[in-house]
């Protein structure tokens, strides 16, 4: 039987984010394994994974994606890690008229106007992060917020999404601060936010939305915002970063995935197998990769034939089970809508990292994720 070829296209060298790519690929492989009960076959055809490296360069990514579609004749491709690289890849899918599943790149724009009907996205987007975060704050008239984000599209979009989630709740954003990417010293901006908040009444929160390093929360916490009654709020993070959350016991926020936060058979299997094989619990990108694989597997099982158009029809509106519950590809822009985890930080000296304990699952339909693009 002819194998079904799938290309995994991620950045595997040239940036320290390569570790995330590897998680995504591990997750994908485990997802296929789970979906095929270890046979690695769907409808009697073996799955063949072709792995390619974008080197975190959009031009290289375009070339290897084109190669996957054109020379390797894969059925569909999955990728990539960084948003910029992935944006560059979108038109190639259209050119070759083959499906591209975006995972784990985050940006909203990947399902935006520049995207096309060949693109599906299983990863979350920034709007989900920030809306979930806003909901986790349980906003009301009593809430005053200062926001801190990095000064580029990702940061500004995130804050916009956050504000739109606060709309109508009565909560007030009194300061919006943006720092250059790569900022490592937050004293100045913290002073600005303190000055904006300290004389306000109510629950005062600094919301931090910074993807890069720099440890803004830790540094602002070190300036003791509690003396003005200000608390810090931020979303959850990948496991390697969670040790730094030990400084924020009791903090509440929302996160894409934490292995103890989701309770379903797929996640149980994933956690158990991952612990057994790698000695560590699965992280964001493992779960993401697995979700993408499960989507592919379901589509392949259900589609009557493997023409691209048939697959697209099958996948539009499709719901499937993942380690973090049910996801659904929204028909309009092919973004997978998904649940998020509302957590509260618990510090346990016996655990190396801070534990984001589940408060509740924020169901997908509670969030109002803007539609990026409408099909034709």
């Amino acid at each position: 039987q002819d194998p079904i070829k799938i290309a995994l296209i991620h950045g595997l060298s040239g940036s320290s984010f390569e570790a995330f790519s590897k998680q995504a690929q591990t997750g994908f492989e485990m997802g296929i394994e789970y979906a095929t009960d270890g046979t690695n076959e769907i409808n009697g055809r073996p799955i063949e994974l072709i792995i390619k490296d974008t080197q975190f360069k959009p031009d290289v990514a375009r070339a290897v994606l084109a190669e996957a579609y054109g020379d390797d004749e894969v059925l569909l491709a999955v990728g990539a890690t960084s948003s910029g690289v992935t944006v560059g890849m979108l038109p190639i899918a259209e050119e070759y008229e083959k499906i591209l599943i975006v995972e784990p790149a985050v940006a909203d724009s990947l399902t935006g106007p520049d995207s096309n009907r060949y693109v599906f996205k299983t990863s979350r987007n920034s709007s989900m992060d920030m809306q979930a975060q806003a909901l986790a704050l349980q906003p009301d008239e009593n809430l005053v917020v200062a926001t801190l984000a990095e000064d580029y599209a990702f940061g500004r979009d995130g804050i916009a999404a956050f504000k739109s989630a606060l709309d109508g709740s009565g909560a007030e954003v009194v300061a919006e601060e943006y720092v250059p990417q790569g900022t490592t010293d937050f004293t100045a901006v913290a002073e600005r936010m303190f000055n904006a908040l300290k004389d306000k009444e109510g629950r005062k929160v600094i919301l931090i939305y910074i993807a890069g390093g720099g440890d803004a929360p830790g540094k602002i916490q070190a300036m003791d915002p509690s003396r003005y009654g200000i608390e810090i709020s931020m979303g959850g993070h990948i496991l390697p970063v969670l040790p730094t959350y030990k400084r924020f016991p009791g903090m509440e926020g929302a996160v894409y995935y934490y292995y103890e936060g989701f309770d379903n058979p797929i996640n149980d299997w994933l956690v158990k197998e991952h612990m057994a094989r790698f000695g560590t619990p699965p992280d964001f990108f493992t779960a993401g990769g697995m979700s993408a694989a499960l989507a592919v597997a379901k589509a392949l099982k259900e589609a009557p034939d493997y023409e691209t158009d048939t697959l697209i029809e099958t996948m539009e509106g499709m719901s499937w089970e993942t380690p973090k519950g049910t996801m659904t590809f929204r028909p309009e822009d092919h973004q997978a809508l998904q649940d998020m985890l509302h957590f509260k930080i618990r510090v346990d000296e016996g655990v190396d990292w801070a534990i984001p304990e589940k408060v509740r699952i924020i169901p997908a339909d509670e969030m109002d994720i803007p539609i990026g693009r409408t099909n034709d």
Partner: protein
Amino acid sequence: MTNGFTGTLAIKGIVLIIAALLLFAPFLFQDVRSIEVAARICIFIVLVASFDLLIGYTGIVSFAHTMFFGFGAYGAAILLKQMGPGWTPVLLGALAGVAVSLVMAVAIGLLSLRVKAIFFAMITLAAASVVLVLASQLSQFTGGEDGITYKAPDLFKPATKLLSDADGKVLRLFDVRLNGKLASYYFVFLSCLVLFVLMLRFTGSPLGTVLKAIRENEARAEAIGYRVVAYRTFVFCLSATIASLAGTIYAVWLKYTGPDTSLSFAIMIDILLMVVIGGMGTMWGAVIGAVLLVMAQYYLRDLMGAAAEAVASVPLLPELLNPDRWLFWLGIIFILLVYFFPKGIAGTVMARDRTT
């Protein structure tokens, strides 16, 4: 002296072969990746050669070369995005890119009159990083980190039929479809060829000799009557213009422009690597360097994968040959090259002629 020029001949021969391979690339290698690689090689040859005008011929160390490349790329990209596909935006974009490049080059060039070479290098580095940040901040024009995708002129659409047979299907020549993709490749190839030949003429001209003299001994060049400042500013502008044009060509070819394809420091490092590997101060070196490094970027990984499998039973070796560590090896090879072939490949081979 008599058996002299074998080295130079060898290098020229290799360059000619490369040129022939590039000319027939679409017919010789019919897979997708090869064409991408070939186009990238063409563009980087021009980019590296224009950088060599600065570093190799005139002895100016600049880290702003990708900035000029980026101006050209973004010029075309933004206009193609705003105005839709067509030749006017490409031309206007090229012009705009060159204009901005010239303004910046003159401004930076005038600064260079006052400060030491190494400080000049740092200023260019600073300018380049400011532009990089600007590109990410002015996201409404530049698409920010994510860059912009757009459509190239209709002629280059893969669906365009250059020639069609009786049924209206695209005609094939030696099994190669004569479609827009092919046109696009030859657009890249020919424009790069023209730019490269122009630069070749520059370096062989009296102007080229003056540049070398400035590199060797600036004060003495001034003393025998050359206005060093004017010459330096001129090459800086010239090299910026060519880099900018190369950027425009790349933008048209790629149909995507973003910081990582046109502005990032990684490209600057690539350019430096290519110049050094090929050999500074000779245009042939640019060709050889660009070919080798682009090939390495696209194939070294696969090669290492194969090698790692081949030695899978040996301990440690497969770990070291892990394809994801290909940059490690590139770095090592690079150090060895600088160490053992300070003049680069072309320079070393050609230097033999002198000593015989």
